[in-house]
């Protein structure tokens, strides 16, 4: 049967290729949507985690995505947090979303930030000293073609880039906390506090004490950040579900159309198979195997296209993170093949029901 399946597909190469490409588009749609979503989520979570510390303290209604948060916490809260038993250091961070450049800037207190953070590595230059200085990460430097000493226009103000740090920590641009507070019109305010526990203490116990001491604040363990983000990101799963639905719909409709027209065109051949004694199950299997093969090849092509598209995205927009988890790769294949198989089911059953005499007489 497999030889017949292969020969049927090679007999009509244009339709086979078009069907494969359509299925691959569905796979591409799923994987790129997932890749961008998960990439952004993972990247945000990882970079946030790499700020350092074991906990984040925010207002109770704040988002874990700092771009959506404002500077509403008094910096003085840091003293309250520091008094909690087991806390080693606290650093306030003010987050500012730069809408015209679509990224965020962190205003940090250099001294306490370095106490909490131990991942910031300067590639060249030095840390910012005054209100007109910023440091940027390697990706930002590359994508904006900036070097140490260059000028950078942000928030209607001209800054000097005093250093470039290795990407992966916090955000792309770091500047002085007080300078950003002034520019933002939120003096003495912060968006979030990063808290480091003392070495050797039980983090869970410190977490318990923090939540007891500050019941009206959102306290998040940074180790659980990614999980919590995925669960609390607005429409995260709804968005992915919609993408999957569209992709499965594409596979379903394309295969339905392709197989329906194939069956109509091959009515006579089905009559021949019936005259040879092929059972209904054999004919259903034949059609389904063709569709499974098309969908599998289409999914393979979809993987290749996804790989190419990711490379293109990373080349064109180096700061855009893309990550496709392995279970989504398997799921995309299942969705494509499943959608295609469902689409082939009606034509397959229709073919199996054909009257052999009418089928043999079909012109």
């Amino acid at each position, binding site marked *: *049967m497999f*030889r*017949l399946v292969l*020969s*049927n597909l*090679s*007999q009509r190469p244009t339709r086979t290729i078009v069907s494969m490409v359509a299925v691959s588009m569905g796979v591409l749609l799923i994987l790129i949507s997932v890749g961008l979503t998960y990439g952004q989520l993972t990247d945000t979570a990882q970079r946030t985690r790499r700020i350092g510390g074991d906990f984040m303290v925010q207002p109770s209604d704040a988002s874990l995505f700092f771009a959506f948060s404002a500077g509403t916490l008094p910096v003085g809260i840091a003293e309250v947090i520091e008094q909690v038993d087991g806390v080693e250091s606290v650093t306030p961070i003010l987050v500012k979303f730069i809408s015209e450049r679509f990224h965020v800037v962190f205003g940090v207190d250099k001294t306490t930030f370095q106490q909490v953070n131990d991942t910031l590595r300067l590639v060249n230059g030095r840390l910012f000293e005054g209100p007109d200085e910023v440091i940027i990460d390697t990706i930002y430097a590359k994508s904006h073609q900036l070097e140490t000493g260059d000028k950078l226009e942000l928030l209607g103000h001209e800054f000097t880039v005093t250093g470039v740090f290795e990407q992966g920590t916090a955000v792309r641009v770091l500047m002085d906390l007080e300078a950003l507070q002034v520019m933002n019109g939120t003096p003495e305010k912060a968006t979030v506090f990063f808290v480091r526990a003392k070495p050797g203490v039980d983090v869970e116990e410190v977490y318990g004490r923090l939540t007891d001491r500050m019941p009206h604040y959102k306290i998040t363990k940074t180790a659980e950040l990614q999980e919590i983000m995925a669960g609390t990101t607005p429409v995260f799963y709804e968005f992915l579900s919609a993408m999957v639905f569209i992709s499965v719909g594409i596979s379903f409709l394309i295969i339905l159309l392709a197989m329906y027209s194939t069956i109509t065109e091959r009515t*006579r*051949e089905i*009559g*021949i*198979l*019936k*005259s*040879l*004694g*092929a*059972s*209904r199950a*054999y004919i259903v299997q034949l059609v389904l195997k063709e569709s499974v093969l098309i969908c599998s090849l289409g999914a393979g092509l979809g993987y290749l296209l996804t790989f190419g598209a990711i490379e293109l995205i990373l080349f064109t927009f180096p700061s855009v993170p893309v990550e496709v988890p392995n279970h989504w790769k398997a799921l995309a294949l299942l969705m494509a093949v499943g959608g295609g198989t469902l689409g082939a089911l009606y034509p397959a059953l229709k073919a199996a029901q054909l*009257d*052999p*005499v009418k089928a*043999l007489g079909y012109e």
Partner: protein
Amino acid sequence: MNRTIEIAKKRDHEVVVTRDLQMVYRVGKVEVPALRGVDLTVRSGEFVAVMGPSGCGKSTLLHLLGGLQKATAGEVFIDGVELGGVSDAERTEIRRKKIGFVFQRYNLLPSLSAEANIDLARRIHGNGYMEETSAREMLGLLGLEDKLHHKPYELSGGEQQRVAIARAVVNRPAILLADEPTGNLDTENSRMVLQMMQDLNRRYGQTIVMISHDSEAAATAGRLLEMRDGRILNRVDNLFYAVEPKRV
């Protein structure tokens, strides 16, 4: 010698029996009778030709014998099994195990090579047949060894029909049903195909029912039935038809 005895034994039983077979087609509200009570018996090893003008019911008779259609009334027995009393799946099983078809338009699968067309019939048939003849051997017997990998469109009409016959008999069916097998062929190829069918009948005891409106083609059979208006009018034995197998 052993083969002669086997063939003689096989001739003992009735492979095809029809009793008062009737078929009525409905075209809208109009009923069009195609068969009006056909009684027919074909014994194993017989080569029967059914002759008659277009529309006399020949093809309908063949389709009913092959289990491709169900009769409106009457009975069809194939190797003792009444086709009207079995399910569609069982009728398919009987077609697969006991019947081989040859059509006027060859009906080879265009996407498969000659060898693959024959092989497909074997695969659909399953592994029940012990003395398996491979597609390659079969094509060798038919003098088509060099056409193994040719697609139907690369073969002449005569070659296609020979492949179609090979496909029909590769599973050694109880009965070979041929629907105008020479209808699309020139004289030379017609002669060759008819010779093949005679050989199958004489050498291997293959039971054949062939439909034709060509009297010359029909005359190659051992028994002639003449049909008119859905009935069998005349039954004539061909006295010149040698039923004994040639020495191989």
